[in-house]
């Protein structure tokens, strides 16, 4: 997950949740980084959409194009995940 923890977009749900603690000390920001990583791992294991990661990807690969809004991204993600084929087994 190289580089993706540096996603700092204002639009990201993660950073919105974390903006309140931005001004705290280094130890705390290490803790928030850890929490953010844990959150990301849980999202990926359970198959939850990760808007922050999408924005990071979008900025890297399609600079200049506006990214999908958060709502649109979720709708798109759910469509891809539950229409494509079975994603849960017996």
């Amino acid at each position, binding site marked *: *997950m190289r580089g993706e923890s540096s996603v700092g977009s204002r639009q990201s*749900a993660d950073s919105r*949740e974390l903006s309140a603690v931005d001004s705290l000390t280094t130890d705390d920001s290490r803790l928030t980084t850890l929490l953010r990583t844990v*959150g990301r*791992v*849980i*999202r*990926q*294991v*359970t*198959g*939850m*959409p990760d*808007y922050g*990661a*999408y*924005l*990071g*990807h*979008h900025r890297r*690969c399609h600079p200049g194009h506006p990214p999908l809004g*958060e*709502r649109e*991204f*979720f*709708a*798109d*993600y*759910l*469509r*891809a*995940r*539950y*229409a*494509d*084929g*079975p*994603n*849960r*087994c*017996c």
Partner: protein
Amino acid sequence: MTSLLWVLAALAGAGGWSVLALARGETVSAGWLIAAAIGTYVVAYRFYGRFLATRVTGLDDRRATPAERLANGRDYVPTGKWVLFGHHFAAIAGAGPLVGPVLAAQFGYLPGTIWIVFGVVIAGAVQDYVILFASMRRDGKSLGRMARDEIGPVTGMLAMVAILAIMVILLAVLALVVTRSLAESPWGVFTILCTIPIAILMGFWMERWRPGRTLEASAIGVLLLLAALVGGRWVAASPVLAPLFTWPAKSIAWGIIGYGFLASVLPVWMLLCPRDYLSTFMKIGTIGLLAVGLILVHPPLQMPAVTQFIDGSGPVFAGRVFPFVFITIACGAISGFHALIASGTTPKMLRREGDARLIGYGAMLMESFVAVMAMAAAAALDPGTYFAMNAPLAALGGSVESAAAVIQGWGFAFSPADFHALTASVGEQSLLARTGGAATLAVGMAHIFSTAFGGGLMGLWYHFAIMFEALFILTTVDAGTRVGRFMLQELLGHVWAPLGRTSWYPSSVVASAVIVAGWGYFLVQGVIDPNGGINSLWPLFGISNQLLATVALCVGTTVLVKAGKARFAWVTVLPLAWLLTVTFTASWQKVLSPDPRLGFLALADRTMAKVSAGEMTAELGHQVAFNARLDAALTMMFVAVTLIVVVVSVREWLLVIRGRKPASAQETPFVETAYAG
């Protein structure tokens, strides 16, 4: 140092197997079962897994994966290998590896365990790995697409139809397992009903009120779920509320049918997706808890290593140990369904080619371990309890006392007083003939959990286990209905284009109704079946799942042969040959055996004879007989489809091997990775 660890693992495995093999007549600790399994997995992963990765398929870390080349931040996302391992494991693990071993425990713990552990090494993990590899080299194409592109359009179409038919049987049998465990159980019904409003609340939370806060919503959901579990005990104890939630099996079946339809036509975010998250959390958490509990408690295995029922006279399901242990335990040793997952979301997330070995081969070993744990939990019960819970009512008679006579007649100790006490301790009115394995597993898990973690809270742990199983089975039911609906719409779209539009509401409703009616029919038939339904439906499911595995192995072999690796094709041909032997023998017996307990056609004839003799009402008799013939027809259809796929595939291999057709795999061309190191 590392080689010392390998040697230790090998010794643990060898020690476990020798204790299991040599101990006759004395009880063995479940710890040996676990040691034998883990030791075998470690050695298999180290040597056979590596052989598959390097020599057979030639994984190349310099080759960019689809996740890197097609990255879109949505489904093509490069993912760390341990995270992806968790993701893939959560997708493949379900009720199958838990229920199958519990049913197969009627042969004793040894036959099932041997198949689970060696089957996965030689067959199941190989299938998952090879399909994952093939899909990864083809931009994440699905199994159906690969069958069409590599073998031919007819095979592709047949694979689609087979997948749809298997899905219908799978959903019916899983729904039946839940129905049997919730019947007449106010505590269980209340808890499971609560999951629906909880999921809807989570859905609105994530979609409307606090968009994107999936973790927050899930935390709230899990807490509410545990509250509902505790509340269930209070409901069951209340003289006013308990009757409201005490439902007979038939009402529960209709409830599940209605639920499956609703979940398929409602927007995904409202019900399906939040339930999926809830069940994933519960699944990973509970399986982890079970592993810890089993290792802490390592209970003695009270079931004999081998019972007299290997001769085919067992009450749980009919048929001899060969071929039926290999049919009953499908998932856990090999599951064709996994090929759909291994060619679904997972190949689009592999960051490096080299990770495929851990994800494809390793995650399946983990699933096999879940099956071993289920076997250990079932075998740790005393055999009398096991058979009282798993034999159908028709065999046991209507009461615990009549069951005692039957079970003692089979040579197992059984105390009615103890059984009544067990029933009361888990807060149920009856545990007799709770066929389908879920309730048995819940009792086994409750024993382990209450010994390891929570002194004496049998009732709470039992219903926790029931909730855990029902939750993710129902998630499979709703997700499967939806997938079935899309597949049907795609097929119908060839007939009349508007029907193929998945966003057109009337088409969605009609297609959902057809799929629900399909599995709902088999579910209701299973509920009214005097022999408990699991008897005929579970083997049908096992056969269909194993036949799907043969289709997957055909695709896998074709991919290897076309890639010029024909000399290694035995890695998939060997399990393919074994599965064909097993499934064709089982299908033959299920259709044609003269024993009405085993053969569908003989059952139909015997039922009609009973009707003529006035021993059965004409209405029920006709239904049972029709259903048995339908099961026979379905089995023959599965066999026919598989035979065609196998014949067409073998022809293709021979053409390539003899040089009459170029050995050209349709892989995406090599692109060098941009990742460092």
